[in-house]
């Protein structure tokens, strides 16, 4: 008996599904392409088919000679639970604690509240414990006390250097193209490197399907369309997707100008020449354009900002034999931004780019049921073109021409990670990554040991602990006050040394026996050395002497994370909580005294729930609370004589660095979804969303403003208030 196992919803094959025969207590596993083969002489067969993220299928088949090719269709768990399914990573079997590493499928957040109907998986991922947010609606996230540039964002194994649209408001990931996001915060696999805090591994949807599919959506901010088509008897699968915003046109309706638009394009081609080989090519392009001008002779100005991500990846998966798998990966990532400003007689042209080419070969060998090893290597060449500035006119005096040198960096990684089931209850997985980075006149070699230990007390309870060292060889030159798409990435050099973080974690996870629920907790301690910051008062915008402004220091972060998930027939809820602290110390900043990190938020709490009160109606809510971020407010001023003769100037006085905590913020978002008849081929979903229901300001800064009585006061504005939106998503 042969056949394939498919996802009932999107008709994609499910790799490595388990097929179990309870009567004979034997079974088999589907291959990479979802194909299986069972040898039997019986006329009837009872099978239990299961795969992570899907409902189990328990079925009895009656076989005859004409009926030996049978395909199975598994329904995603979302169909029943209508909720978020968070599961331990399957790939990194060392990590058994959902608080350490979570995987979220795009299909599992379809009913969650959103702004403008954009079901942004990254926005949702940021509700997980251990993550502090930056400013409201910003894309930056701060994982376990780390900095925003310490997160490795991957799309089909290629690095995404600026994963945001709308100046950080939305992620670049089109929901119709994304299959799942895996966020790893601790207990890292040895294959990961070059970031200290986290890995956000985004996987695009697999293009294989039995039949064509059209998916799309129309929302307040943008519309999108994806088309998938199998060709050549399912040997080749193609998918094309596009998204474009029209927020510029929408805003124009109320006679306001927002001269901004973005679009992204995605293409996937999957070639399956045999059961043992699969070749996947992904192409991704995202562009943001901000174009403003005024032709009035007095205000005459033109400006054009353009930010582009261009990513290509080629992935050849090969099953050498039943125990040996290989994965050959070639990726190329380009991020570039161009700025052109013209005001009266002055012009500024600025270009920056970061280009990397990566070749990786990864192997997995399953020695036996108790021992598995992953090993491989990667070679990566970076090309950094920092600020190349050309100016003319009056501004040329303050911003001189600058043809910054192009920098090349070669980074190599070699790793070995073992997963060994020592006794039936204890699993040990040590790993080592040896990384090297070569820059002009200097090579740094780093040893990054990793160790995970798990003690499975029983089916319900386990304890785990881990130690990891991570090394980072590049950093983003951006202000913690305001990160911009124009921020540069800069490599290590002779004077800038790699950043290092040592993290120790311990956690436990308990599955409730009677109800579908799981509780996970973890504590972590992270010691960070040679962290990057910038000298006081330095220019980060058009500066090409980056090495002169960078300072390196120390940081420490520790915290407790909790996650609770409960599921009932119609109702699904989960809650996350983080108690954390993150400090920094730089000799050149804050007079060498310790200071709290900018987003050192003491408490983070999120509560989300989905209630499917009718087969075609669902209601969802998310409430989140976060302690205020840290801030350095203006507290006073003083007057001094200027150099020269007879001048006075006012100098500001601030608290110590990040010396004040902003007020706590909280917000509730709601969503109501209506599904068209699920029996029909055309499936539609109307969704009404309300962002920030009670219109609470989520403060992002402190201003000194005038009171009505003429006095002065500290005021904290919020970016977005209540925003209602309606969207329609469909699938054909």
């Amino acid at each position: 008996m042969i056949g394939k196992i498919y996802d009932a919803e999107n008709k994609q094959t499910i790799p490595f599904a388990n097929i179990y025969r309870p009567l004979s207590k034997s079974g088999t596993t589907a291959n990479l392409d979802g194909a299986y083969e069972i040898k039997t002489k019986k006329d009837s067969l009872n099978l239990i088919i299961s795969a992570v993220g899907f409902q189990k299928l328990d079925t009895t088949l009656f076989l005859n000679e004409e009926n030996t090719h049978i395909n199975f269709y598994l329904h995603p768990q979302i169909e029943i639970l209508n909720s978020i399914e968070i599961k331990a990573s399957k790939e990194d079997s060392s990590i058994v604690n959902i608080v350490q590493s979570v995987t979220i499928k795009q299909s599992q957040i379809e009913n969650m509240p959103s702004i403008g109907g954009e079901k942004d998986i990254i926005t949702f991922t940021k509700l997980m414990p251990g993550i502090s947010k930056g400013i409201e609606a910003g894309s930056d996230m701060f994982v376990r006390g780390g900095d925003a540039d310490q997160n490795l964002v991957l799309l089909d194994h290629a690095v995404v250097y600026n994963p945001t649209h709308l100046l950080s408001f939305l992620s670049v990931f089109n929901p119709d193209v994304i299959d799942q996001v895996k966020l790893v915060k601790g207990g890292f696999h040895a294959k990961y490197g070059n970031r200290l805090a986290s890995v956000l591994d985004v996987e695009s949807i697999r293009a294989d399907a039995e039949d064509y599919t059209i998916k799309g959506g129309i929302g307040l901010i943008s519309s999108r369309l994806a088309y998938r088509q199998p060709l050549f008897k399912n040997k080749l699968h193609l998918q094309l997707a596009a998204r474009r915003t029209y927020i510029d046109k929408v805003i124009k309706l109320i006679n306001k100008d927002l001269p901004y638009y973005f679009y992204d394009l995605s293409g996937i081609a999957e070639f399956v020449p045999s059961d043992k080989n699969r070749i996947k090519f992904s192409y991704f392009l995202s562009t943001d354009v901000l174009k403003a001008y005024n032709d009035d002779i007095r205000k005459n100005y033109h400006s054009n900002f353009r930010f582009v991500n261009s990513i290509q990846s080629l992935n050849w998966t090969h099953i050498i034999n039943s125990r040996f798998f290989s994965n050959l990966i070639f990726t190329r990532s380009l991020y570039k931004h161009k700025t052109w400003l013209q005001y009266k007689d002055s012009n500024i042209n600025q270009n920056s780019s970061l280009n990397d080419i990566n070749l990786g070969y990864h192997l997995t060998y399953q020695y036996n049921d108790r021992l598995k090893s992953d090993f491989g290597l990667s070679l990566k060449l970076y090309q950094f073109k920092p600020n190349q500035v050309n100016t003319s006119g009056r501004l040329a005096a303050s911003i001189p021409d600058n043809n910054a040198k192009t920098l090349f960096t070669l980074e190599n990684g070699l790793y070995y990670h073992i997963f060994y089931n020592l006794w039936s209850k204890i699993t040990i997985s040590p790993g080592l990554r040896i990384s090297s980075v070569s820059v002009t006149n200097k090579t740094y070699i780093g040893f990054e040991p990793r160790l995970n230990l798990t003690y499975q007390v029983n089916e319900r309870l386990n304890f785990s602990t881990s130690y990891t060292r991570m090394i980072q060889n590049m950093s983003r030159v951006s202000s913690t006050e305001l990160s911009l798409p124009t921020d540069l990435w800069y490599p290590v050099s002779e004077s800038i040394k790699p950043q290092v973080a040592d993290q120790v974690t311990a956690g436990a996870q308990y599955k409730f026996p009677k109800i579908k629920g799981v509780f996970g907790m973890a504590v972590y301690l992270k010691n960070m050395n040679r962290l990057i910051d910038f000298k006081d008062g330095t220019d980060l915008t058009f500066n090409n002497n980056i090495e002169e402004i960078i300072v390196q220091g120390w940081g420490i972060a520790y915290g407790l994370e909790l996650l609770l998930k409960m599921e009932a027939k119609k109702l699904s809820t989960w809650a996350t909580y983080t108690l954390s602290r993150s400090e920094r110390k730089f000799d050149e900043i804050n007079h060498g005294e310790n200071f709290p990190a900018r987003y050192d938020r003491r408490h983070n709490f999120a509560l989300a729930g989905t209630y499917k009160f009718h087969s075609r109606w669902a209601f969802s809510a998310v409430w989140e609370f976060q302690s205020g971020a840290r801030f350095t407010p203006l507290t006073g001023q003083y007057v001094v004589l200027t150099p020269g003769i007879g001048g006075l100037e006012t100098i500001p006085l601030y608290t110590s660095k990040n010396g004040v905590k902003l007020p706590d913020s909280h917000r509730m978002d709601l969503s109501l979804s209506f599904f068209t008849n699920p029996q029909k081929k055309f499936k539609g979903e109307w969704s009404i969303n309300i962002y920030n229901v009670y219109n609470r300001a989520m403060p992002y800064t402190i201003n000194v403003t005038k009171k009505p009585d003429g006095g002065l006061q500290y005021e904290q504005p919020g970016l977005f208030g209540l925003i209602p939106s309606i969207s329609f998503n469909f699938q054909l």
Partner: protein
Amino acid sequence: MKPFNRLYLIILLLACEPEPLFIDISTPENDHIVVSSNLYNNEQLIVLLTNSYDALESQPKDSEELIKQLSLDSILATIETRGQLDTLKHLSEGFYWHPQITLNDFQSFKLQIRDTLRNRFVTSESQILPKVTFDMAYPTIEEKFDTIVSIHYKFEDLKGTNWYMINVQKAISNFNNYNFSKTKVHTELIKDNDQSGKSIEGSFKVLNIKFSRKDTIVVSISNITENYFKYLELRNNEANWLVEPTQEPFNYPTNVIGGIGFFNLYYTDNKYFILKDH
């Protein structure tokens, strides 16, 4: 498209801007003694002594009024050098004066301020560095949207590592009814690269001051300490509108122990130019 347009309009009209939150920030009281100084004609020491003030305190816009409100007038200010202690004369609100101090290269001066009323005491030291003079300095004028003045200079680098500043401003003809806060000074900072004895030559544009052809300008050069150079570097950066949005707040360095501000002494070599002649 009309129904969609209407729908969007309704949605956008429903969208609200959140009310800002108002908060109290308990910060330490801002009553630091502020010191700043200048040396006129390379002999007259002027020291301005004021109090700092709270960010939420409403202050007069007029500089005379502001100084009046912040000035420290009942204090004892002394300057000590090579065992000689002189008391500074109280000139007017906040201003203290020494009519003629004797200066020698590398001589150190210690300023001491004693506020007996509030039992505060601050002290600061400064060293006078050798004098640098222009070999050549002249302005050129470019008439475009505004009158843009460029300064061309040449001077001989002094021995060792040095930090120079060139200041450009309109000349002050009359100090009566003079508005201090309206005086703008452009400060160009130049660090030598161990070129001792060699000429340093260059030019720069003065963009932060509006000139007219009628103006007389004064261009001065001074050899200053490294600490004061760094202080001025930060100040110049902060004044750059392109830098400001991404710049993180910071407190300026000070060489005043127990207070804030900067006490320093430096020689100046002044050149005057009538713009219409150039």
